[in-house]
């Protein structure tokens, strides 16, 4: 039988042309938490964040919720952004919150690429999708796929 399972679900919406809004949840046999995070598309900076801690192991764990605010101002394009998130949100707050923020960050370029592909397919349903992806990657050298 399965003795440990962890699921992460990350959704992205575009409330306006300048912002991507992530909702991320992480649920496993031990912990469960959720964050909402707004990112400015132009520079990938986290501009707003909030979170809920739903299942935890220690009475101090909910104290990690306000620590999430230290993510505001971090750019998901700066060198070592994921290590900074783990350092600031994880070690001073909760590593599981940090894991969700990092997974949202890893989805940034996938979500932007997916949106552009979706728009392109509306114009040309016979579009070569593999070629579109390759061209998109070449035209965006600063992306971090993952």
């Amino acid at each position, binding site marked *: 039988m399965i003795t440990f399972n962890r699921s992460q679900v990350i959704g992205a*919406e575009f409330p306006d042309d300048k912002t991507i809004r992530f909702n991320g949840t992480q649920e496993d046999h031990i912990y469960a938490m959720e964050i909402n995070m707004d990112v400015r598309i132009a520079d990938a900076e986290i501009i707003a964040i909030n979170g809920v801690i739903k299942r935890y192991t220690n009475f101090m764990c909910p104290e990690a919720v306000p620590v999430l605010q230290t993510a505001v101002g971090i750019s998901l394009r700066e060198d070592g952004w994921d290590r900074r998130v783990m350092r600031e949100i994880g070690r001073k707050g909760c590593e599981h919150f940090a894991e969700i923020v990092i997974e949202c960050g890893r989805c940034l370029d996938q979500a932007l690429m997916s949106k552009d592909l979706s728009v392109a397919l509306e114009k040309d349903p016979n579009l070569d999708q593999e070629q579109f992806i390759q061209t998109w990657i070449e035209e965006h050298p600063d992306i971090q796929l993952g």
Partner: protein
Amino acid sequence: MILRFLRNKVVEVEPLSDGNLAVSWRLTDDLLKAEINLKVKPPELEIVEAEASLDRLPPKAWLSAPQLIKKVEGVRVGSGLRKIVRGLLGGPDGCALLIYAVLESSNAVILHYTRPGIAARENLSDEEKMALTKEMLKNNPRLVRSCVAFQDDSPIMQGLDL
């Protein structure tokens, strides 16, 4: 507002009848479908088998993932793992997704071992839990300042000189 992008990711640990642990890591989103399977042998927690498959619209640079993942066979889940895995699977010809998958799978193996201890503490009194947590910190000082609960100003740290 409806979503424009959705990613689902799951990692599972399953003990096998031969004593090994099977770890299944799977990801699916609008553009990518990935599956990484590891077999981990206790007690050294050596990765004895590793397989990967990528589907849907993966970047061309990642098409070598099924061959690349073989590099972690023989690696042990333990100290220095992050650096070792980044060294083996990273770089210009590497695949970031495989790094994340192997590290998250390894973390799941650790949590597989952690879960019974946490479950055993659930019915203890608050005082007993506090005493046990303090004892754990004394035995594992690397946990000090590793999260909000173990910061210097936390009530848990009171009376501990760590």
